[in-house]
């Protein structure tokens, strides 16, 4: 892949993303630079993905023994996560069969069972699944019956999840300790950006070799990751999510009609602006070759005041490491944290919600004192 040659590995913020953009650059790095890149990758949960990208990019052989050693350690961890995720998926499929519902996997679980590049070397924690809203209670009941327990929530949080949220409170398996997040859609119904789950379900695809197991269609997988990163949360795993999107585009971007479908679907689901944010970030930070006509079209979706938002995103998408996290980054993360609240709830809900949280925390502190 031809990328620009003006990469500066001495700039800590450019180091790790530069390697993901073009793994061939691995040959250029000095041991001290490698050390920093590995630390950044480890702290951001990207060491396993980096190893995979280097292997796929034909750069593995050029690595020093030390670097290979550190990356191999990470690969051992992520191989374990992968194995567990596959096992959990099969176990959950059996549970869902009892109520005649296929298992529809989201995010990392989906990448792993489909054996996508995005799933290799990945750090996985909870398994996320999608079910029709009308079957939510039935699904919760069958999971309870098969040994999962709701994780301890106070009554208010529980009510928040069920009434306003897009997912049930997480459930944990009694013996195995694994956690499942049961969604009926990918964004909260009360949020500024929201998606009707039935649209996603209608387009879900089966997995060859795995009956009763499904994932979202490729453009929806991409839009889900985009929505999660730019339209929902506080960007805590920003770079990791962006790397997922890069991997998904590399996987599906060459399929005929993919880009046209991505744009149409973004329009249909109301996720145009987040998609613009994502493609802009992918182009800027990961040097992703977004087709020119696509970029031209999505740029028309940019908001006014984009100049203010863009540098905030840029900082939140950095690796988690002291070398790139100064006070400006802390300030940006806080601003994005506030933004995530604003996105999730209208003001009429937000003020009472934050007030209740503050009062509860104050009461806990008083009790503990």
């Amino acid at each position, binding site marked *: 892949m031809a990328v620009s040659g003006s990469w500066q590995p001495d700039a800590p913020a450019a180091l790790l993303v530069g390697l993901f953009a073009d793994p061939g650059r691995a040959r250029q790095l000095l041991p001290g630079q490698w050390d920093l890149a590995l630390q950044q990758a480890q702290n951001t949960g990207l060491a396993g993905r980096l190893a995979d990208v280097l292997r796929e990019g034909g750069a593995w052989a050029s690595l020093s023994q030390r670097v290979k050693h550190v990356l191999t350690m990470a690969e051992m*961890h992520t191989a374990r996560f992968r194995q567990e995720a596959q096992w959990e998926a099969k176990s959950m499929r059996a549970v869902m069969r009892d109520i005649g519902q296929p298992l529809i996997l989201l995010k990392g679980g989906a990448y792993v069972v489909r054996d996508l590049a995005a799933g290799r070397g990945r750090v996985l924690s909870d398994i996320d699944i999608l079910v029709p809203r009308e079957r939510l209670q039935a699904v919760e009941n069958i999971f309870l019956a098969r040994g999962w327990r709701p994780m301890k929530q106070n009554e208010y949080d529980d009510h928040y999840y069920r009434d306003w949220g897009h997912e049930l409170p997480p459930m944990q398996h009694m013996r195995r300790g694994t956690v499942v997040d049961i969604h009926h859609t990918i964004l909260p119904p009360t949020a500024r950006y929201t998606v009707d789950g039935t649209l996603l379900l209608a387009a879900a695809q089966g997995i060859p070799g795995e009956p009763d197991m499904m994932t979202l269609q490729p453009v929806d997988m991409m839009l889900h990751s985009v929505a999660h990163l730019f339209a929902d949360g506080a960007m805590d795993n920003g770079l990791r999510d962006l790397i997922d999107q890069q991997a998904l585009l590399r996987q599906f971007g060459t399929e005929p009609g993919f880009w046209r479908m991505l744009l149409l679907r973004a329009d249909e689901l109301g996720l145009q602006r987040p998609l613009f944010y994502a493609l802009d970030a992918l182009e800027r930070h990961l040097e992703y070759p977004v087709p020119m006509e696509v970029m031209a079209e999505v740029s028309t979706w940019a908001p006014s005041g984009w100049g203010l938002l863009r540098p905030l995103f840029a900082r939140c998408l950095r690796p988690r*490491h002291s070398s790139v996290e100064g006070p400006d980054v802390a300030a940006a993360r806080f601003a994005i944290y506030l933004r995530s609240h604003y996105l999730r709830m209208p003001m009429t809900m937000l003020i009472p919600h934050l007030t209740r949280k503050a009062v509860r925390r104050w009461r806990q502190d008083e009790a503990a004192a």
Partner: protein
Amino acid sequence: MRLRTNSRRLRERVAQMYAGYPGTVEAAEDVVADFTVDFRRFLGLPRFDWRLAFRVNGGLRLSAQSERLSFALFEWGANWCVSTYCQQYLAIHAAVVERNGHALVLPGQPGSGKSTLCATLVARGWRLLTDETAMFRLEDGLMVPVVRPISLKNQAIDVVEGLWPDATFGPRFTDTEKGTVAHVRAPDASIADMFVPAPPRAVLFPTFIEDQPVEIKPYEKAEGFMFLASNSFNYDVLGAAAFHCLVRVVEQCRMATIRYGDGTAAAEAIEAEWP
């Protein structure tokens, strides 16, 4: 491991306790380290005491303690790193000593006295491989040394000081969570052989009981396997590879328990049992 610190006190203590080890204490910037530990000195408020903040690999601060406890914090941090980052070996919570080409594994229940027994044997000339993290090579079950200072608690410190007059002791740290803690530098011979692995010959489960005469009894292999697996730092990460490695170890090694009230008597019995 790379150490970065602006605490002179810590730097000097580490230089003393790790004297003779390959590498230097100064920051080596053009090396790929397995992990980097960072101890930054800062003035704690509101008590105005000097404290050290501990970070690994430039990440979140994991702990902050009084600078008074600096070396204890360093050892604790290094333990954490070794058990988190060393996945190429099966790591089990045990001491390992070696004599005449055979390694003895001493798994450590709290209160077992494993560190004290380990120190006693090392004082008598056994090679120290580790007092804390037994590392088994996955492919052949050989034990890989992790030679670091032996950590001792409370009365054990006095006992070992008594029978090991040549030992280099670090400072005593009083008022820690575990009581009084001190460290003994590993002997020069053990440091010199830090890259020499050893085949395990026996797994000996120690239990210290006041005034107990020495008793060595065989231990059921299957139970031994379960104990070792449950005391492993990374058995679950390594999965099947760990299982096969541990099976080989359990099949090849003698398994026994030792109950004792006097460390020297225990050491003599061990030396008689495994000449």
